[in-house]
């Protein structure tokens, strides 16, 4: 999806402003928002990729106006309703009006460690890797309307395979309910001038983590 979330290389957002002694959360609701989102992921309400898509599908003006946890809150609200886990009327009332939808598990104290450790996204390879370390590749010029992890700034540009990271769950597939469809994952390194033109910092190189379907021989 060519959305506002795909920010690499955009101009006009101003300086980075570090906050000295920043707290973990700036308000109580932020911590609860984070934990509720993680909990719903842990009970299997949606995958990490479906969740990311839920953020990206917020309208661009909302995406830019809201804080990070503000976007998470809206995503949680929207997806709870979309997935039939609660009704809009129940959220508006602030109380359950109907029984729960069956889920894989409930999120209790015993499930907390599940959310503190990241899951594994590596999967057995259905086929040998197509590309070798050192090989020149081009990021495809593709513009899927649904979730993808190929950033716009890399599309159409040529780089080199720097590492093979194994075969991983393919976000473009899981995000649309298409199953894990595992694909080889590569670190692809681009020269800064290849991405940004001759005026770019000559000392810069940038890498992306690219799934095999994003790449073609160069």
């Amino acid at each position, binding site marked *: 999806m060519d959305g506002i979330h795909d920010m690499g290389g955009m101009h006009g957002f101003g300086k980075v402003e570090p906050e000295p002694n920043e707290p973990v959360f700036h308000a109580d609701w932020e911590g*609860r928002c984070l934990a509720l989102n993680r909990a719903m992921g842990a009970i299997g309400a949606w995958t990490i990729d479906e969740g990311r898509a839920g953020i990206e599908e917020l309208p661009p003006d909302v995406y830019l106006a809201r804080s990070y946890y503000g976007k998470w809150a809206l995503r949680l609200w929207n997806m709870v309703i979309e997935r039939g886990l609660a009704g809009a009327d129940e959220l508006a009332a602030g109380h359950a009006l109907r029984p729960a939808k069956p889920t894989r598990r409930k999120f209790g104290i015993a499930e907390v460690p599940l959310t503190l450790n*990241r899951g594994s996204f590596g999967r057995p390879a259905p086929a040998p890797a197509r590309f070798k370390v050192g090989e020149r590749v081009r990021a495809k010029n593709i513009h899927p309307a649904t979730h993808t992890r190929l*950033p716009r700034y890399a599309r159409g540009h040529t780089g080199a395979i720097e590492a093979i990271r194994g075969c991983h769950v393919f976000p473009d597939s899981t995000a649309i309910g298409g199953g894990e469809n595992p694909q080889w994952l590569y670190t692809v390194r681009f020269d800064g001038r290849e991405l940004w033109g001759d005026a770019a910092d000559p000392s810069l190189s940038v890498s992306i983590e690219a799934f095999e379907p994003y790449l073609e021989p160069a």
Partner: protein
Amino acid sequence: MRHDHDDEHENGSELSEMQLRIRALETVLAEKGYIDPAAIDAMIEAYETKIGPHIGARVVAKAWADPAFKQALIEDATAAVRTLGVINRVGDHLIAVENKPKLHNMIVCTLCSCYPWEVLGLPPVWYKSAPYRSRAVNDPRGVLADFGVALAPDAQIRVWDSTAETRFIVLPLRPASTEGWSEDKLATLVTRDCMIGTGLPKSPAEVG
């Protein structure tokens, strides 16, 4: 609640609106039995008190002090960090990238805000912000200037965009004049930002 009027958001109203939304969500999800609020409390407490950049600092300090661990960390950071045992178990796809005298690494996620939570805790607001996500990949020296950091003009800059479930941590250069320091003392030099690549470790003079 104005849940159907997101686009009418006004500055300053987010706090109360979000408090109400989150309270409604938590109440409904708990009444339906999906979640136990005590488990929500426990998760928040873990992120506030247990999981943070002190974990990454321990990893970096050990790599500085122990060449065999450093080599193992560069080869397979997930496996190497797991050997430390007492710290939080990490996910399967942690990658350590090593700074060299003429090579500086920086980590970003331009598409969302992917970050190595298990070793650095939750990301700071600036890491998740549009200015950082947009500029890290095409103006990293400008970003470093925002942090008060200037690299040598002939240093190479390598930016790692975290576009998959691989997660990166920068192994910074060990500061000079720290020969013979214990791992615990070395860890006091390691800042969160130097493990993201937007800062450098403290100098020995700064920690006394």
